[in-house]
């Protein structure tokens, strides 16, 4: 009898203690990414984390984890409860759902405003698709625009098709798409870019890249021409696992999304400035920006438009492609 009673008390005390602990212990959100810690994006996300802690009276604690080796690894850890959140580029997001590839169609968007408009319109659909995979979209990020850096000047789509073009290894669909459209893609690890561009017999002579990467890896000194027609914005998104999001109270979720929105605005407003300053710095060290005049640019865009359609149903699900095209064209009509 005594034994039964003591066991009952022990259980009650243990439950009470655990309830007390869970009432005090913050919900820790560990965010993984492949971005170096010293980057401005991580700094912005860390300050968002501080805003989360303040807005939720420290019920939520945000931790940006040191860089992972790959976005696949970040997704695997999120899927196995090793991380609660991930900051993923469009490549990683497309691993979760290929509809995100609709944000990276080459030469599809012409300006930041056009891209921002389409992104806003597509967000409900993409959020829904993420939710079906048990993720919650927290915010969008903008890592600047991808540009083409080449050893020889590129002025037309035919020039680009002739080039030995770097593409990330591990994306066979993209390689197949490039090849079927007459390009010469060379799948390599990103670390190979500087060496391959430096060697006269290197495997590549052109590469798409964002300006900070070209500057940090210094490969613009060998691929010293940059086409002034931008390929695509480097979109990123911070997503949280459904289970971690469910542990946050509805009020705290609202506060967190509010702080996230502010960070998103900051990232989107700083992207063009950072791009411009990086390009200016590279120009001072010899980078030549190839500007196309009106007709040449229009010709380039027209050729690119045809290319984009070939991604429909292969790289991008048909409904996502139709949606992005519809929203972009609707935006362009309003600007005419």
């Amino acid at each position, binding site marked *: 009898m005594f034994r039964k009673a003591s066991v009952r008390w022990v259980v009650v005390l243990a439950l009470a203690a655990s309830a007390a602990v869970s009432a005090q212990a913050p919900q820790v959100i560990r965010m993984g990414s492949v971005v170096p810690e010293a980057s401005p994006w991580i700094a912005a996300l860390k300050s968002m984390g501080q805003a989360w802690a303040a807005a939720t009276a420290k019920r939520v604690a945000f931790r940006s984890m*040191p860089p992972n080796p790959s976005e696949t690894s970040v997704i695997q850890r999120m899927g196995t409860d090793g991380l609660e959140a991930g900051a993923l580029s469009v490549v990683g997001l497309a691993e979760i759902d290929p509809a995100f590839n609709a944000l990276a169609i080459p030469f599809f968007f012409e300006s930041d405003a056009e891209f921002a408009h389409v992104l806003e319109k597509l967000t409900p659909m993409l959020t829904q698709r993420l939710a079906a995979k048990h993720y919650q979209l927290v915010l969008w990020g903008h890592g600047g625009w991808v540009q083409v850096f080449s050893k020889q000047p590129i002025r037309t789509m035919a020039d680009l098709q002739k080039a030995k073009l770097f593409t990330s290894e591990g994306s066979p669909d993209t390689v197949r798409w490039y090849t079927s459209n007459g390009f010469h893609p060379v799948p390599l690890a990103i670390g190979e870019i500087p060496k391959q561009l430096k060697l006269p017999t290197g495997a590549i002579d052109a590469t798409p890249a964002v300006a900070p990467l070209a500057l940090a890896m210094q490969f613009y000194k060998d691929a010293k021409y940059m086409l002034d027609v931008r390929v695509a914005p480097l979109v990123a998104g911070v997503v949280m696992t459904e289970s971690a999001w469910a542990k946050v109270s509805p009020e705290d979720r609202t506060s967190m999304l509010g702080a996230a929105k502010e960070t998103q605005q900051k990232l989107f407003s700083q992207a063009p400035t950072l791009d411009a300053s990086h390009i200016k710095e590279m120009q001072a060290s010899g980078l030549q920006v190839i500007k196309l005049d009106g007709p040449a640019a229009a010709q380039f865009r027209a050729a690119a438009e045809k290319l984009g359609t070939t991604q429909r149903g292969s790289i991008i699900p048909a409904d996502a492609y139709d949606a992005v095209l519809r929203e972009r064209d609707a935006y362009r009509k309003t600007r005419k």
Partner: protein
Amino acid sequence: MTADAPRWPRVALTRAEVFIATVAVFGVILLPLSEVVLRRLFSTGIDGEATFAAHFTLLVGLVGAAIAARDGKLLALATGTLIPEGRWRTLAAVSAALVGALVSAILLVGGVGLVRNQVENGGVIAYGIPYWWFYLAFPIVFGLIAARLIWRAWPAWKGRLLMAAVVAAGAWFATRPDMFLDASTWPWLLLLVGAAALGMPIFALLGGAALIIYFSNGDNPIQAVIGALDQLKSSDLPAIPLFTIAGFLLAEGRSAERLLRFFRAFFGWMPGGTAVVTAVFCAFFTLFTGGSGVTILALGGLLLPALLADGYRERFSLGMLTAAGSLGLLFPPSLPLILYGIVAEVPIADLFIGGFLPGVLMLGALMGMGVREGIVSGRPRQRFAFGEAAASIWVAKWELLLPVVILGSLLLGATTVQSSALAALFAFIVQRFIHRSVTSLADLLVVMTKSIALVGGILIILSVARGFTDALIFADLPQQLAAWTTENVKSPWVFLLGLNVVLIVAGAIMDIFSAVIIVVPLIVPIAMHFGIDPVHLGVIFIANSELGYLTPPVGENLFVASYRFNKPILELARAMLPMYFILLIGVLLITYWPWLTTGVLAFFR
């Protein structure tokens, strides 16, 4: 009851392991080469080539580790052998195997979790082949390793079943990581260290430590397996099995004799000629491969017999090769130096210029030891004869062509993996069709089995070490260390001394690429705070890491050399001590005399 089980299941399993690993090895060799040919000549390629090559490497590493476990060749500290033969030695072996099997069984649980996740959410590499087919190797291999550790530790079935029951019970706890949340890790870490001292494999020490840290944070064992997976599919890793196989194939014939004749003909006139050549050759090789252990694997089998046959003491030769395997990282186009430049945002050209004199200093120190050994040992010198020199080149032309093939292919734009695949194919063609040392499929399988077991033993340690490093990072230890340093260290000299220690330890427990990515962002701001030139910091980083490779008990060169030369780690550590001391002086000079780095740089700036 003795353990005479029917032989056929074991024979069938052995054949299956060798078959899978051999197919995977040929995949790793042929895929990168086919890709180069198809891409350059026909503007096409193999879908997912690099991903398949990386996953075949994963298979080679894991199956190789299972083979090493079967043969009792998983690397362990030699301290267990210090216990006198008899009851105590047996008890020690059983205890070590029990803990090792328990760690393996928990990693099995993690592997099952990963496969389950990937069956549900994982993608397809290409041609409809999903990733999880390859990931199945994790639970199967960790299960095999656990079973084999138990099997070898106890000769009777009753004891084996008892051990298996204990291991299964322990593994059950691994499915409830919450039980360990916020618990002290020290008792468990001490248990692991104790078991390692009694002879538990080193992979279990690192893997077990990773698991304990993850558990104490409430994380599951899948996280340790994801860390191992990240390491096993990293893009340059296939170079390790490929250079190893190239080295093994060359070692099969009489390549060492031919090379020795060449070295003697050209350098026999100077004191310590062959030892000097060993240092230069290793540095030269490392600067192109970037990986320190790779050099020992590729050249150790050739150079050790050459040094021994030339009259150098075995101890000196082992020490020289182990130490020389980490030279070269300060010369262009060293990959770690490039990576440092990227991470720390320092011009890479400045690093190459700044690293030159320190690189010469470290290389010169080992060359000096070679000359000293030549003088002290009184090894007779021979006069240079032009006819003999020319003849030796002709005889050793195929062996001498190997570095030319590697260097040439790299300079023509091959990646490290493509170059190592070419080296392996070249070595195979030379031994099969020119020297005819490998005449049949059976010969080839013997070489393959030996090299795969060696590679497996190394890769399993490298992979779980990554899990361990990740666990430390997830536990926030590096950040805490950085915060503590900024708070408590006021003198740059004290900081540099602490940096020496931290970097040597970091170099000992993790590969240099991980170390750059993880440690550099933490130390750069602190170093700036103390006014240390970022180029100087980069050179300090790489020089210390070179020393870290040699630092017991887990410095990569030590365990790679232990495998390659079949010697206990402690014996190698003893053999390498004089070289370690000399290189340490070099590292201290590089650290505390910044002019070595910044002097030449100032001239160019």
